[in-house]
């Protein structure tokens, strides 16, 4: 992991003092709520339905065991015992008192953490995939450049008041596990013919009420220009992005309005004027940061561990878990383990208690190298586990309810907190999530369905990324009543696509049956091991629509036109 030096430490410490002063001025009335709002947002503090919510940054989803214990302490001492991991690899605490926030930020700063720019119209937490540095299909470890971007974008004075929020993701694997194409800037890192590091820069992606996948604006950018080129994109956006309408202010609207080629030319013109500047990254800086991500000292292990093999043969439950919840590791004899935060009805997706966090921190130290990752799918990852330790680890994870063998399956739902917490949401995403998880609890059925993503958003802001779920569910409010609109065919990764609406929206209690009919249609039509998304792509929407709407169990109440307003 990247270790803070005296500059990094001084910055986060100073920021705590600054915010302590700002909170005091807000409480004394010197600052109006309107003036305080962007200051608190840039420190991760939202005012939600019932209380303040604090979003803490987990840069590119990486945590040390000690840092996870700090999050556990915040959950226990300042919140109601749990935190919520988000699709941006961050963690949110939902029940926070304003007066206590400076102390929480102090606790974070003392452990090289912060909540800076986890909100507000600025560059947000840089994300990458949870298996960075260890994935079997990785080309280049994206974390050094992610950290360099984190530093560059933190309190970058020119870009603190952009037209709208700005999200950057970077990926460098055969599969894109970071939803790169749904980002304002998406970066694909790869090697050129001579082994040099290059970037394809994608711009103008975002979900929300106008979902758009980003498009390539620059091919084969030498890595040294990651900052100059990003600066050029942000300067063009800061100057020309719309500010008159919050819903048209994301960079995707600017790119779409200008056209991607004209936008790219505008950026190119700006970049030409700054690309030979001191902002060009140096090999020395890259190496300084990369040193923090040097691989741990792995043991030389055999490809096959007899004891592990024996447990696989003896315990089919363990086998199921290994099949779904582990990922190939680049080092022989190791695996990465995914801890499902989706046990079903007993806890909302992404919610983890303080006790669980402490237990995971202990396991990360006992079986790994003391490191934990947060995945875009809101799960936790132990990146470096010896295969011979998988069985005892699984036993312990089962005890703390983090071993549901459903990673990548229907019940591994991505969901926003919805109207139960969020001031923006107009429907509650958690009850419908729970209803689906209860209906489809048969693990054999889920495994038979295979890879299938289900994403739920409680409103058009699309925090649950419903557009890129194979099945997407969007909550819509119709005269004070909650309805849910279903899309199918969405996908993230290298073959990203946006889902299409199947028809009229459903009441909460009707959603599980509608999903069931979608699944039955798939099972009827699938060929061999074809996953759900490929069947949808092959046969189109019509067979699904026919089955879902053939009988009135799924009562129609809202037309799609109304629901998509």
């Amino acid at each position: 992991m990247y270790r803070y030096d005296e500059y990094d430490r001084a910055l986060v410490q100073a920021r705590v003092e600054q915010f302590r002063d700002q909170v005091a001025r807000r409480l004394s009335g010197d600052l109006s709520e309107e003036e305080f709002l962007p200051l608190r947002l840039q420190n991760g503090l939202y005012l939600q339905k019932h209380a303040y919510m604090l979003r803490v940054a987990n840069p590119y989803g990486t945590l040390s065991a000690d840092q996870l214990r700090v999050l556990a302490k915040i959950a226990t001492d300042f919140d109601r015992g749990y935190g919520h991991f988000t699709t941006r690899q961050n963690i949110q605490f939902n029940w926070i008192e304003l007066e206590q926030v400076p102390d929480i930020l102090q606790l974070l700063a003392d452990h090289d953490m912060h909540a800076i720019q986890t909100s507000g119209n600025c560059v947000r937490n840089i994300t990458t995939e949870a298996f960075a540095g260890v994935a079997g299909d990785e080309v280049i470890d994206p974390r050094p450049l992610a950290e360099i971007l984190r530093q560059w974008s933190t309190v970058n004075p020119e870009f603190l008041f952009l037209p709208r929020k700005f999200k950057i993701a970077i990926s460098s694997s055969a599969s894109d596990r970071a939803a790169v194409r749904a980002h304002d800037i998406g970066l694909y890192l790869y090697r050129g013919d001579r082994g040099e590091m290059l970037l394809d820069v994608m711009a103008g992606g975002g979900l929300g009420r106008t979902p758009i996948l980003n498009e390539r604006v620059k091919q084969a950018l030498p890595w040294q220009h990651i900052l100059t080129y990003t600066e050029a994109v942000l300067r063009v956006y800061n100057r020309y992005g719309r500010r008159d309408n919050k819903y048209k202010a994301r960079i995707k609207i600017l790119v779409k309005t200008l056209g991607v080629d004209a936008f790219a030319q505008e950026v190119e013109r700006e970049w030409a004027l700054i690309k030979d500047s001191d902002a060009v990254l140096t090999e020395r800086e890259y190496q300084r940061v990369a040193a923090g991500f040097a691989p741990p000292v792995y043991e030389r292990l055999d490809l096959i561990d007899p004891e592990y093999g024996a447990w696989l043969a003896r315990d089919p439950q363990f086998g199921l878990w290994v099949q779904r919840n582990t990922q190939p590791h680049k080092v022989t004899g190791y695996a990465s383990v995914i801890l499902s935060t989706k046990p079903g009805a007993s806890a909302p997706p992404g919610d983890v208690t303080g006790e669980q966090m402490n237990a995971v921190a202990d396991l990360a130290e006992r079986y790994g190298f003391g490191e934990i990752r947060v995945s875009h799918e809101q799960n936790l990852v132990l990146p470096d586990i010896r295969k011979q330790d998988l069985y005892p680890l699984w036993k312990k994870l089962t005890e703390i309810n983090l071993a549901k063998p459903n990673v990548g399956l229907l019940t591994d739902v991505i969901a926003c907190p919805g109207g139960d917490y969020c001031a923006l949401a107009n429907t509650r995403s958690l009850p419908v999530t729970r209803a689906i998880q209860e209906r489809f609890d048969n693990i054999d059925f889920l495994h038979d369905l295979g890879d299938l993503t289900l994403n739920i958003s409680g409103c058009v802001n699309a925090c649950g990324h419903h557009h890129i779920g194979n099945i997407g569910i969007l909550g819509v409010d119709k005269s004070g009543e909650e309805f849910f609109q279903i899309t199918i065919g969405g996908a993230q990764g290298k073959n990203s696509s946006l889902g299409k609406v199947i028809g009229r929206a459903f009441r909460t209690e009707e959603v599980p049956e509608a999903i069931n009919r979608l699944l039955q249609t798939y099972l009827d039509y699938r060929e061999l091991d074809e996953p759900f998304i490929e069947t949808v792509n092959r046969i189109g929407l019509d067979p699904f629509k026919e089955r879902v709407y053939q009988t009135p169990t799924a009562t129609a109440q809202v037309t799609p036109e109304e629901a998509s307003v």
Partner: protein
Amino acid sequence: MKNIITTVNGVSTVVHDDPWSMPGEDDSGNRDYQIVSLERLLVLAESGESLQKLYGVVLHPDDDPGVLQPWLDSLPLIALQFPRFSDGRAYSQAYLLRARHGFEGELRAVGDVLRDQLAAMRHCGFSSFAVREDKSAEEALKGLEVFDLIYARSVSTPQPLFRRR
């Protein structure tokens, strides 16, 4: 103008006798220190009037600062507007005027100018600040006394931190 903070050689102070007036402001005092709109500046330039050290100009946030290129050597002051403090276009205009066009005169932030943004403004090249009139300039001065280390380069620290650490 009232409620002005200026920064000279790194030292920021509240100025009580600022001579400048904004367009439309009561300029019964010193007629030699008027800040005019870009449109007015272009008219004055067209009519051949001497622009030396008499007129400042205020840009709209949408204006390309490059239009001032012909007069940058003689303009004593350029004002950039913050219609709301959350509207950050003037940060980029300031950067361009300083870093790209080499403007060396006074660069003034006007509009919704508040204490908690002053340090970022200074980083981008602003050298004076017309603090919103219902706020105390003395209080706002504290906004320039904060720790303001940044990683990226800026007008005030042209070398990014990675070249110095």
